[in-house]
């Protein structure tokens, strides 16, 4: 009985202590240390897969590529310069058809609860990763659908004859022809290196699908937990070959609603937020900062050229003429974007200032519609993407503005929107009439704007939802790729842009900056020059220093471009 009362007393005191600690929130030190060692990133959507080979959606690459994997080579700066990564160095033969990579010998794969690597990274992994894409008979080719949109859109399979293993740490790519964008494509977020040993293990367990759901890579973070629509939890990869990351835990708080992302940022529930809205509100807060990066992208309004009435060129032109782009840019991008004349942004070397731009002319639009036989106008659906991307921070509002513009020429617009993954899936099936989407360049080579977006092969594979296919245009792209002569390439691309602006499979709208907001205690570069984001270099200042910063307002730099 005595023991019992003792127990009761100790339990009671425990409860009281717990209660007090709940009320006062004491033991702050522990919480602080946990939050100091972790970053919460409010991301805009759920990734479809953890293998960037399988998807061209930015959400997927943001959540996988730079966090979980490495590529053979990378871009080292904004110019066209390539640098080493998993490959220490490489060599291209004079005819440009043989490229040899010399691999690093000290790279370890993730060690997780679902896989324990027994060997270091070697040539087999490179072969495994690329053969999965190239070789239709590869045991993993058909796993997860057998679609490799980026590689298909750049005709990778037609280009690469084979990948050879020279020795354990040397690989050679043999190409069928010279292709000036090949190395650039290998440096994109899509050309990641998977683990061959993991593939073998999964095959033995006959759960090959896990390779894209429970990923194993060489990157700075490894996957701990993923709950669709809710969170992704990464742990640090302690044996990372470039030295371990400074933060131990990286959590993606998946918040598709832009307001909820802003709320969480303002309430300090996330450290970094993707695609923030209300820039003014963020800059006026001293504990937050807004940053942006010029990225190569284009937001556009596309037409399904396989469906009535957009199989008619005149209708596409008429609709394009009826849209007041400048208003869209002022409203949607708040002036933070450049009006797109064609699909290439000004910063690209192949940009041609002579390209004629289809202006805003509702009267001509109306007469074109009449010529096309739509005197009474028509009703169309417009698919607005549900997430914010750099190229289009608010597709729904843009759709409403377009709806108003088109009403003036007698065209009724029905706005349609689905959750992101469903949206992309239905789009690739061609259920839509017109859509708002965009393209983020993966590397600075101009071909990245043409072949993946508008070539015939991309329209066959479904990564081009306009389903537009123009033989002349395709030939121009092929010609441009077969030469390394910059001025020749430039003139090919200029011609290609003219074809686009004449045929109007899509109406380019704007080239925008990518924005991101973070608490001022988060330091280190996150936005990468091309494509996605990387948390490898991020650190978190302890809160104490943050207060000192607040005393000196000049130190808190608000917008850094």
């Amino acid at each position, binding site marked *: 009985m005595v023991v019992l009362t003792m127990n009761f007393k100790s339990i009671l005191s425990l409860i009281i202590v*717990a209660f007090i*600690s*709940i009320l006062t*929130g004491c*033991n702050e030190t*522990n*919480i602080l240390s*946990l*939050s100091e060692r*972790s970053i*919460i990133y409010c991301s805009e959507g759920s990734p479809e897969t953890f293998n960037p080979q399988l998807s061209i959606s930015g959400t997927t690459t943001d959540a996988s590529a730079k966090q979980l994997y490495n590529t053979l080579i990378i871009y080292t700066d904004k110019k066209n310069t390539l640098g080493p990564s998993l490959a220490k160095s490489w060599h291209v033969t004079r005819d440009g058809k043989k490229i040899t990579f010399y691999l690093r010998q000290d790279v370890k794969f993730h060690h997780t609860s679902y896989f324990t690597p027994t060997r270091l990274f070697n040539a087999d992994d490179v072969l495994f990763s690329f053969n999965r894409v190239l070789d239709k008979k590869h045991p993993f080719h058909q796993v997860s659908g057998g679609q490799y949109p980026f590689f298909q859109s750049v005709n990778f399979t037609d280009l690469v004859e084979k990948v050879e293993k020279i020795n354990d740490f040397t690989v050679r790519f043999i190409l069928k022809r010279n292709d000036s964008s090949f190395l650039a494509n290998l440096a994109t977020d899509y050309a990641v290196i998977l683990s061959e040993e993991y593939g073998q293990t999964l095959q033995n367990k006959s759960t090959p699908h896990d390779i894209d759901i429970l990923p194993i890579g060489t990157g700075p973070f490894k996957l*701990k*937990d993923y*709950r*669709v*629509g*809710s*969170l992704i*939890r990464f742990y640090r990869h302690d044996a990372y070959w470039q030295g371990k990351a400074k933060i131990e*835990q990286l*959590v993606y*708080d998946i*918040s598709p*609603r832009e307001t*909820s992302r802003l*709320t*969480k940022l*303002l*309430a*300090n*529930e996330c450290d970094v937020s993707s695609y923030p809205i209300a820039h003014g509100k963020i800059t006026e807060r001293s504990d937050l900062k807004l940053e942006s990066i010029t990225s190569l992208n284009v937001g556009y309004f596309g037409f399904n050229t396989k469906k009535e009435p957009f199989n008619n060129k005149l209708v596409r032109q008429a609709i394009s003429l009826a849209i007041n782009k400048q208003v869209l840019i002022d409203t949607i991008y708040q002036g933070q974007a450049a009006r797109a004349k064609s699909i290439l942004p000004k910063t690209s070397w192949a940009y041609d200032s002579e390209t004629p731009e289809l202006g805003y002319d509702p009267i001509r639009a109306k007469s074109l519609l009449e010529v096309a036989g739509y005197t009474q106008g028509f009703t169309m659906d417009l698919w607005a993407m549900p997430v914010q991307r750099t190229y289009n921070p608010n597709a729904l509002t843009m759709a409403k503005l377009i709806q108003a513009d088109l009403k003036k020429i007698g065209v009724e617009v029905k706005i349609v929107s*689905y*959750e992101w*993954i*469903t949206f992309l899936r239905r789009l690739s099936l061609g259920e839509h009439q017109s859509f708002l989407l965009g393209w983020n360049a993966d590397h600075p080579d101009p071909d990245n704007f043409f072949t993946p977006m508008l070539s015939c092969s991309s329209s066959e594979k479904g990564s081009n939802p306009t389903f537009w296919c123009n033989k002349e245009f395709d030939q121009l792209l092929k010609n441009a790729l077969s030469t390394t002569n910059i001025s020749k390439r430039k003139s090919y691309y200029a011609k290609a842009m003219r074809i686009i602006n004449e045929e109007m499979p899509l109406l380019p709208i704007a080239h925008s900056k990518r924005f991101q907001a973070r608490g001022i205690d988060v330091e280190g570069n996150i936005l990468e020059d091309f494509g996605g984001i990387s948390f490898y270099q991020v650190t978190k200042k302890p809160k104490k220093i943050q207060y000192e910063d607040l005393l000196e307002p000049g130190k808190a730099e608000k917008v850094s471009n």
Partner: protein
Amino acid sequence: MLTFTLRRLSLFIFTMLVLTLLSFSLSFLFPGDTVINHSGQINATATELAQLNKVYQMDKNIFTQYGAYLTHILNGDFGYSMASHSPISIEIIKLLPATIELSLVALFIAMLIGIPLGFIAAINHNKASDNAILSFAMLGYSIPVFWLGLLAILIFSIGLGWLPSAGQISLLFEIEFVTGVQFIDILLSDSPYKWQAFSNASAHIILPACVIALAPATIFIRLSRAAMIEVLAASYIRAAKAKGLSFKQIIFRHAIRNALIQIIRHVGLQFANLVTLAMVTEVIFSWPGIGRWMIESISQRDYTAIQSGLLVLSCFIFIIHILTDFIYAALNPLARGNNHGS
């Protein structure tokens, strides 16, 4: 009590049959192929489709089909979500506890605030405080819950920075999923940050639970006020008064007990209302519950998920309904004999 139990049990089975029948018929009402709506396998190949048709006995008559559907449900097979392609039963098991937790806490808060206020109003019947409480109650059930939620976030999360605005717990804490009820899971976990997690989770639940609780609390005010007025007018209270008991003694010894029993009868009905409010609130507070999941499923036209979500949610509401009926019957023997319920 036995007859009462048996009667409730038969009612329970009857209602479950009606509900499954309803959810079964939804597959026919929804656009698209019935068997795909049943199973949620939108990407099924021709052979898989044939297999599904066989499993769900689609070639047989409607009763056999219903039987096949019922067998699936009873085996816990709700099909696959059309949007996420994962088994719905697993998703529901993950999400339902969060909703149960939130709505029970909200119910508790609603009763804790509503019932005493109602009693106070009744005791001060027709006085200023009665009118003030009644006006508050009127305002409380007139306010749209989503708007209230937004205001609460603006004031308490962003303006004052007291309480978090989203989710069940800060994502930094890794709590292993055992029961799904966050507080229990935290106590079961062996995380070194157990108590921080606990306090963090408590901070997270306060705002959404209070927002949900407001409207039901006002109903409880009215119910308890009415019950108390009725009790105070009863003859045994007059008798107690005549015996010379003080007003305080009458209230605490007799009136509250009897008024409470009257209120419990309505808890079940109020709970259904509360769960609906919770569905909307979950959207605003990004609560990882079944309500938010269902509303998302509706906008994504994920028919299989809608169908199963409805079935599970209405079963949950109905079970709570029956439970309160039992509690009421246990407390009030008179109710057991009632043939038609109330």
